[in-house]
């Protein structure tokens, strides 16, 4: 019975080819955007988790603002903390550096987003001041040249990401070339190995599109109004990580006159925060994409209603030769489902295509996982049923002689 209905449905959808294509389009767009958004979210999470794990469990991250609200034991993300200007200062960095429990400390200070080289200017660069031990702390390899050393702190040296090397100089190894930042010249001292960091990485930047310069140079560029995005601190192997976190907290709080307007995060907390941020963003964008699914569903309903009234006579004939209301209902339900499931399959196909393109031409690595596919399948089936039930009922309830007479 169902296979017969499917054959009928496909026959009738083929008959009206263009109408079918345009009706499916809504579902195609809806499903492909939801799948793409969710897979991007998955991909980011994957990358960030990898980065955080690469960082190691003994690294503490200090961030401005109260990133996590702890109320009644439940911690939730405080999104406002990302909007406030940084309260961390260079003094905080040196205070933390003097603590006995930590072995290595590096700040990341935002300087500007513009840099230029032989091939012109880029305005989507993450230019940050840091200390020479950052790369070691991040376990970030250098492909060409070398990181600047502690002795180079007052030199205009720069370590640049692999994308920047390609874009500003057009070569893999531009060591020795000059990069201009805010009117000052920096000599390229090293090029970072390509990393998988997305734009939502722990440094809130993609290392591939970063330019790191010594803190002293950064301070001079920002006239000492440095914007410390985070302080990374590796805890000594023999020290207790919670104790170290507490010490860092009290030390910086002391600097800030007792106010705790910053957060000291352990690796697992960092993971939690990332998870929440991504979850919220993904949900939000998915909700937007879901609107197109709703529109697509209404499109299906509309077309099915037209189809039912066009085929009044057919319904009459089918009833005259013995189709029950239920059998007519099934016929139109299957037709609506064929539309939405067909749209869903094409939508999933398109998301695989988008996925491939993103992987080839961007630093993003979306992941289409089985749960997303199940979700997409469920959503298309659900949309099909919800939006074709009314037209199918209308068809099923037609009075046979009125239907036979009607046109």
């Amino acid at each position: 019975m169902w296979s017969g209905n499917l054959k009928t449905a496909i026959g009738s959808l083929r008959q009206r080819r263009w109408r079918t294509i345009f009706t499916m389009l809504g579902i195609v767009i809806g499903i492909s955007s939801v799948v793409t958004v969710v897979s991007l979210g998955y991909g980011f999470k994957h990358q960030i988790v990898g980065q955080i794990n690469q960082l190691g469990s003994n690294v503490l991250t200090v961030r401005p603002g109260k990133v996590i609200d702890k109320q009644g034991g439940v911690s939730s993300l405080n999104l406002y903390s990302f909007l406030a200007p940084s309260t961390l200062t260079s003094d905080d960095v040196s205070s933390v550096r003097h603590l006995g429990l930590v072995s290595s400390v590096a700040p990341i200070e935002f300087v500007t987003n513009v840099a230029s080289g032989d091939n012109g200017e880029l305005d989507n660069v993450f230019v940050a001041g840091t200390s020479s031990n950052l790369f070691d702390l991040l376990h970030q390899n250098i492909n060409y040249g070398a990181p600047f050393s502690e002795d180079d702190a007052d030199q205009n040296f720069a370590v640049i990401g692999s994308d920047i090397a390609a874009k500003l100089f057009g070569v893999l190894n531009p060591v020795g070339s000059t990069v201009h930042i805010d009117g000052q010249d920096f000599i390229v001292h090293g090029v970072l190995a390509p990393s998988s960091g997305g734009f939502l990485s722990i440094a809130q930047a993609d290392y591939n599109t970063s330019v790191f310069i010594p803190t002293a140079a950064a301070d001079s560029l920002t006239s000492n109004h440095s914007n410390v995005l985070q302080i990374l601190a590796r805890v000594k192997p023999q020290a207790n990580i919670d104790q170290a976190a507490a010490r860092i907290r009290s030390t910086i709080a002391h600097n800030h006159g007792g106010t705790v307007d910053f957060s000291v995060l352990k690796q697992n907390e960092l993971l939690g925060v990332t998870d929440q941020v991504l979850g919220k963003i993904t949900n939000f964008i998915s909700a937007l994409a879901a609107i197109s699914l709703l529109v697509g569903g209404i499109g299906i309903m509309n077309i099915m209603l037209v189809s039912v009234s066009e085929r009044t006579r057919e319904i009459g004939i089918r009833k005259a030769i013995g189709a029950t209301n239920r059998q007519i209902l099934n016929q139109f339900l299957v037709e609506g489902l064929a539309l939405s499931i067909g749209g869903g399959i094409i939508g999933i196909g398109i998301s695989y295509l988008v996925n491939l393109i993103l992987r080839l031409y961007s630093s993003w690595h979306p992941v289409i996982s089985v749960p997303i596919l199940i979700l997409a399948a469920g959503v298309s089936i659900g949309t099909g049923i919800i939006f074709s039930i009314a037209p199918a009922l209308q068809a099923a309830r037609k009075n046979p002689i009125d239907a036979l007479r009607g046109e």
Partner: protein
Amino acid sequence: MALIELDEVSKLYGFGDATTLALDEVSLSVEKGEFIAVMGPSGSGKTTLMNIIGLLDRPSHGSYVLGGKQVAHQPAAQQAKLRRDQIGFVFQFYNLLPRLNVLDNVALPLTYKGMTPVRRAKRASDILELVGMRDREYYMPYQLSGGQAQRAAIARALINRPSIIIADEPTGNLDSQDSRVVMELLAEVHRQGNTILLVTHNPELTRYASRVLYMYDGTIVGDEKTAIGQMARHARRIFFRKPRTTDNDIAAGVSALIRDVPDKALNPRAKRGRPPKVKKPARRRKAYRTKN
């Protein structure tokens, strides 16, 4: 026990001032194996009667017993099953589904029975052989002549081996040659023991019937047993009067048939111009209830 038993069946269309009494307390009993021709002017209620007997429509009042069971008020699903298994319809305009080929059209009633595609195709093929349409199995309906389309439609009506065939003006759209083929087919089906109800405007076709009903204004005004091969008595009179249509009639668009109101003998209760009896059915309804 009669196969079909209608008792004071009325059918009202519309309501208020626009009420039409399409059937007015029609009582009829049909035995198994009868070939009944139904005649009467346009609007006399022939199609309405067929639709009620075929369970496509429900009577407003009265009782309908089919094969010993009261069916007038059965749930829709039951009626659909009866239509599927007991009744085959042949319509004036063939009513084949335009998107299905002949074989699929003929096999369609079987899909609603849940038969497998292979068995369906086999059975449809056999029936098409019977109506001489085997070589047209894969034609689409628009590729058929009227006579061929009607033969396919008859094959479809026969496929579930129904006990009743209802043919509402099956030759209305056909030339005399095709009409003959279709009527011979129905006659053959009748010889196999089927009950046939045929609506026609052509008196000559009463030759195939064993009984002729004449309808007028929603009632059966004449009921005549006739020998197969003979034109029925009243039908013959209509037939011979037919050529007497005057030029004036033609100019006015009035055919001899429509003008041919049965005479007093046929129509003892002349009801022309009587307003519809809107009140009456309430009383009849009670009568129907007491009968149950």
